[in-house]
């Protein structure tokens, strides 16, 4: 998966560190006026986005392996390298990251307090997210993985709502508890490299060729899985998410839902599948069931919320349950659908948080009951809201449909019972989203409370416009998107197909394996 290196240069580093340069500029130039700080940050977020688009255009959708790879020895004593690369699994997430950061930075004009610090956090967060997506070295990945926590912690803690301190601490402690165990596993893997390959190595492609005993593999994968499951979040570990979302400022929620949550599935694909294929297969029935529980639980919880932001937060749990199901189904549609759905969810949910943010800025309440009948006063807003509502429930011709369709297909071909349960998630999704829309946009208009409410400003229209374009672009013509995913997901799947266990698993003969030796993935024969 990582052996074919195409195109060397420092494009990825340049993109990754542009936001940091932006932070330096923010501090050196000391922009006293809000406008200037906003302008500098937008400039750098825009440049990063432009750079990622250039990479996207140069990305070869047919090539296997990592592209634009970079490698510099960093801490030779530990075998740690600064190595970056990009493939079909990460390319869209990278673009999504730079895009949403730009959107959020652009939309930050409404932040009234401590704007410069706010922008600094966003740009630092962008570097962290890009680094985690690009890192091809276990420690580098871990460093960026942790680096993402810090600015998000500040975003929630400083600009958050009433219970922000609690939510920020809960967020950090939950996510850190997973990643610390992952650190132990990472070190253990490097140490195994020393024993089996003769030198300590944190490179992911060295780890791929390691051989584990069955027990070892399950334990090591559990450590990774725990970290990723918290991030997704998979059902019983989701409790930090609603708190974090509700308390976070709009920008924080957008990034959290739009990008950060994707790192769970991304991690499973990047680390789980190639390194621990057997363990992934062993765990996948559990994951599939938890995914479905997440779909239904999230949807039911969303249905009963009175707070709009909480509703959208729980809908995230539900949507990501689909991704987990797709991943656990372990077939082509499942993998591609999971990656595509991550992008879709990034767009739709981010947009929904922005929609809620628009209302909150005007009336400082997120309770559904405080609104109603907005259609008359805010026609543009109502339209925008409708588009994203429909995209969120996966109406055909919007982006949500393609991903959900692939995932349901994957779910059914994996297990029809699970597929049936998952479909009920779609129905519930339509129920809670449409009822939200109805209660906010239609119904009686409260003149006394909302009489002075204004429609979308030009800036807000500019924020929403590209998101709307994407909703329809992905819905009408998903080919270029799927194309760039296909090769990498096929490669990931290939690792699994090397496992004799997969056939047994697919035919339903095993749930947990007895000890077995399995062929190590051979790097020469990457694709069938």
């Amino acid at each position, binding site marked *: 998966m990582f052996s074919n290196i195409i195109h060397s240069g420092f494009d990825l580093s340049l993109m990754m560190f542009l936001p940091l340069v932006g932070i330096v500029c923010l501090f050196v130039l000391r922009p006293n006026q809000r406008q200037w700080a906003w302008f500098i940050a937008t400039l750098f977020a825009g440049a990063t986005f432009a750079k990622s688009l250039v990479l996207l255009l140069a990305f070869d959708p047919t090539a296997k392996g990592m592209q634009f790879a970079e490698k510099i020895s*960093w*801490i*030779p*004593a*530990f075998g740690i390298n600064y190595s970056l690369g990009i493939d079909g699994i990460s390319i869209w997430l990278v673009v999504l990251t730079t895009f949403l950061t730009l959107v959020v930075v652009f939309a930050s004009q409404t932040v009234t307090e*401590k704007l410069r610090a706010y922008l600094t956090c966003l740009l630092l967060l962008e570097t962290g997210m890009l680094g985690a997506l690009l890192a091809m070295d276990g*420690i580098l990945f*871990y*460093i960026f993985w*942790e*680096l993402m*926590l*810090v600015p998000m*912690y*500040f975003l929630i*803690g*400083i600009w958050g709502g009433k219970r*922000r*301190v609690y939510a*920020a*601490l809960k967020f*950090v*402690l939950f996510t*850190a*508890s997973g990643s*610390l*165990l992952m*650190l*132990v596993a990472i*070190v*253990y893997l*490097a*140490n195994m490299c*020393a024993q089996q390959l003769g030198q300590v190595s944190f490179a992911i492609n060295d780890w791929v060729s390691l051989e584990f005993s069955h027990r070892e593999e399950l334990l090591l994968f559990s450590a990774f899985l725990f970290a990723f499951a918290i991030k997704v979040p998979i059902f019983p570990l989701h409790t930090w998410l609603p708190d974090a979302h509700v308390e976070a400022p709009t920008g924080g929620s957008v990034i959290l839902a739009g990008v950060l949550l994707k790192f769970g599935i991304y991690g499973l694909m990047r680390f789980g599948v190639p390194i621990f294929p057997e363990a992934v297969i062993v765990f996948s029935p559990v994951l599939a069931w938890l995914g479905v529980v997440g779909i239904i639980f999230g949807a039911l919880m969303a249905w009963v919320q009175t707070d709009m932001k909480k509703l959208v937060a729980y809908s995230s749990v539900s949507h990501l349950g689909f991704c987990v199901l797709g991943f656990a189904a372990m077939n082509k549609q499942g993998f591609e659908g999971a990656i595509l759905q991550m992008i879709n969810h990034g767009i739709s949910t981010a947009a929904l948080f922005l929609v809620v943010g628009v209302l909150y800025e005007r009336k400082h309440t997120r309770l559904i009951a405080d609104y109603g009948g907005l259609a008359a006063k805010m026609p543009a807003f109502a339209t925008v809201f409708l588009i994203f509502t429909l995209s969120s429930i996966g109406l055909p011709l919007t982006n949500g449909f393609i991903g959900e369709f692939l995932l349901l297909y994957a779910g059914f071909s994996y297990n029809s019972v699970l597929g049936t349960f998952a479909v009920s998630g779609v129905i519930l999704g339509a129920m809670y989203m449409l009822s939200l829309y109805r209660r906010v946009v239609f119904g009686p208009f409260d003149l006394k409370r909302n009489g002075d409410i204004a429609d979308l400003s030009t800036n807000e229209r500019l924020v929403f416009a590209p998101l709307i374009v994407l909703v329809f672009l992905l819905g009408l013509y998903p080919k270029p998107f799927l194309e760039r995913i296909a090769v990498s997901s096929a490669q990931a799947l290939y690792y699994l197909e090397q496992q004799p266990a997969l056939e047994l698993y697919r035919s339903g003969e095993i749930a947990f394996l007895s000890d077995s030796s399995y062929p190590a993935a051979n790097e020469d024969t990457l694709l069938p």
Partner: protein
Amino acid sequence: MSDIDFSAILPFVVLLCGSLTVLLVGTFFGKERTFSRVCLSSAYCVLAWLTSLEYVYGNHTALGGFLRVDSFSFVLFGVILLGSAMTLLLSQGTFRDQRLDASVDFDVLMLLATAGAMVMVASQHLIITFLGIELLSVAVYALCAGARNEKASAESAMKYFILGAFSSAFLLYGILLIYASTASMQLQDIALAVSSSSPKDILLIGIGLVIFGFGFKVSLIPFHFWTPDVYQGAPTTVSGYMAVVVKVAAFGAFLRLMSTAFGNISGAWTDLFWTLSVITMVLGNLMALRQESLKRMLAYSSIAHAGYVLMGFLVMDASGGGEAAVFYLLAYSLMTLIAFGVALHATAGSENQYDNDKIEALRDLGWSNPLLALVMTVSMLSLAGIPPLVGFVGKFYLISAVIKGGYIGLAIIAVLSSLISLYYYLRVVVVMYFLPGTEGKSVVRLDGNELLLSHRVVLAIAALGTIYFGLFSSSYIEYARMAVKSLT
């Protein structure tokens, strides 16, 4: 006993001359500790470090083999002298109204204590180690009592003195038993005697007592009872000095003793070290959780960090635990210096510094003094082991050594206990940034101008070091490796 290699004892001589010079300057030009005067004292630390540069690669034994200055000494001298120089700079103008500040005694005692710390690290003979410890400790007893009109300061000195004497007694008794069973106090000779015969019970008891003695000095649980009280009561700069220099020196001497003299029987205390390090990490962090006082919190945090360092002792031999411990000492020193440096400002504003060392005193610091808060944030995140700061590299180094040595369980306990620590380190950040400042209460509000130049220099250097060694740790890792290699 005939050879006296003067180049080998030059750093010690520099410090002793330094303390005399500072004393003389104080006598002739008045006792006011101005910026230039403080710079003079810390310049001696720098000079001592420069004269030790030649030990990077070479070994010198001095005073008939009693002292051995090798790359291990060089590396730890660096940490100790850095800590001392920074403490000296930080102490300028921090307790203006108290007599000690106006006098140069502080500098003299500090330089003498530092000389003692260096003796401990370089000593090849148990009695010399003991002398080093006493030279360091006696000076620090006096320093603890520095704020003479504070009850707490006197109490702190008294506690430290009594318990310090207690631990010295343990140590001496242990040395005696070791001498009784090996007929030597020279580390190399002990190593020889130990490897030639199977260890006797009396020797093991001796080693056990020595471990207890050092356990007091580095405040491992259950020998930690003095630490929070003493750190809280002593003047903040002195607490910082104890947390950094005293601890580094004690760990250095401990490491040299364990690996040079008893390296051959390192299996004998595995269980003891395992247990001590686990309870120190876990209980230290748990007890830090509920502290209201910043200095007490830092005291418990320093206890917990001693537990981390001890993990390195457990896997000293092939797994590189010694190197990891040496690296961790540097990392820990930098972050802790910052923490105490900022704690100084949390306490400096009020009439009575002991009433106001609450974490709450840092309220709103993030917005009233952003740079100071940023530096404190760097320190807290680094102490919690968040990458890419030096604390992370240190913890990573230790954990890899422990895993390499086969102690997976210990590694997991270590990361979980550092998860606990994340909570209380972040609480400081919460207070600084997330809680609004309260009007009318005596919340410290420092303007940027109020920070003395010397303090700014120290905090800037330590913060940049915390970031720099986190990102580019390679060269220092090499030094740590070389240092430990020179021990055997």
